[in-house]
């Protein structure tokens, strides 16, 4: 089978796009990066997930579920890689890795505070972290989040609320001034 043949499929909505098309791959990379916050690990996760998806593509009966299915594989790869990475991740590392990205961004904001958010996301329970990343950082709807994580949309909403509350409490514990509205 020629991998290029898959790219010739109609690319309409995001869901119907072949996962190994360049734009889809970029989105998957960003998803992996936002879960792992490490470029090398994210590349590994996406590469591995795409190869797996390509090999198992005949098992997917409903072509409408392409995109959530591939995203789910990426999330699963990230879980495995993240378990190892989180042990060695420290605030300084996250800050050092992200500073160039955040500094050149159009909305730099408080680089340190955003690095703290990334670090503390790692302290959340897995489900809450994944829902927050998919919803707020990846910009998925709750229906998409629910499909990727195999949850009910309402459950995803509950995880999101608890995750936001917990993350805010963790930030407040580390940065007392943040409670008073200091960005």
């Amino acid at each position, binding site marked *: 089978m020629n991998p290029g043949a898959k790219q010739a499929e109609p690319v309409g909505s995001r869901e119907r796009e072949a996962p190994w098309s360049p734009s889809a791959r970029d989105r998957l990379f*960003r998803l992996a990066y*936002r879960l792992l916050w490490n470029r090398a690990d994210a590349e590994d996760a996406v590469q591995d997930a795409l190869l797996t998806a390509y*090999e198992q593509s005949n098992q997917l009966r409903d072509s409408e579920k392409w995109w959530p299915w591939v995203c789910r594989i990426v999330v699963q790869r990230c879980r495995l890689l993240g378990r190892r990475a989180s042990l060695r991740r420290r605030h300084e590392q996250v800050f050092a890795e992200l500073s160039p990205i955040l500094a050149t961004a159009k909305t730099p904001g408080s680089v340190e505070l955003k690095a703290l958010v990334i670090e503390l996301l790692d302290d959340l329970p897995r489900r809450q972290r994944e829902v927050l990343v998919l919803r707020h950082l990846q910009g998925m709807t709750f229906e998409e989040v629910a499909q990727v994580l195999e949850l009910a949309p309402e459950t995803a909403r509950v995880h999101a*609320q608890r995750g*936001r509350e917990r993350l805010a409490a963790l930030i407040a514990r580390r940065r007392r001034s943040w409670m008073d509205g200091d960005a």
Partner: protein
Amino acid sequence: MKCRDARQRWHSRLDQGGLDAELDRHLAGCEKCRAYAARMQRLVGLMDELRVNTDQLAPPVTDAGFHSALRSRRAWPTPGARQLMRIAATIVVVVGATLWFRTPKTPMVVSRTTEAAAPSVQGITLRAESIERFIAVAAPSNEPNVQTFWLYPMVTVAESRDRS
């Protein structure tokens, strides 16, 4: 409205949109909930900024790199070959199990040949010059394969009188 309900409704409004006048009234009158909502709004804003900051990231993986990785992965065993191997392994297991359970099993017995007791004939010669005939009377014996006979000499009355 209780504060707990108000906070839940704040999150629902964030996630699903829409208007909630009752919630707004509660926030206007509750300082704690107002501070809570402000904190949450700042957090959501931070995460939105993070999304924007990382939106331009792209992997350095090229199509050629992906396809070469795919080729090396497909070299051996290919997915088709793996599938065939799975089927073959399943067949072997099923056939083996069938044969194993259907073959009648004879208990393993150490063969012990019991030699049939060959009739042992032992000739006994009794020498008694004056006695020509004997009467054999079978006597009880506790040992297997051993038959005991009591032998009584047969003598005539005349011979008996002569001996006495």
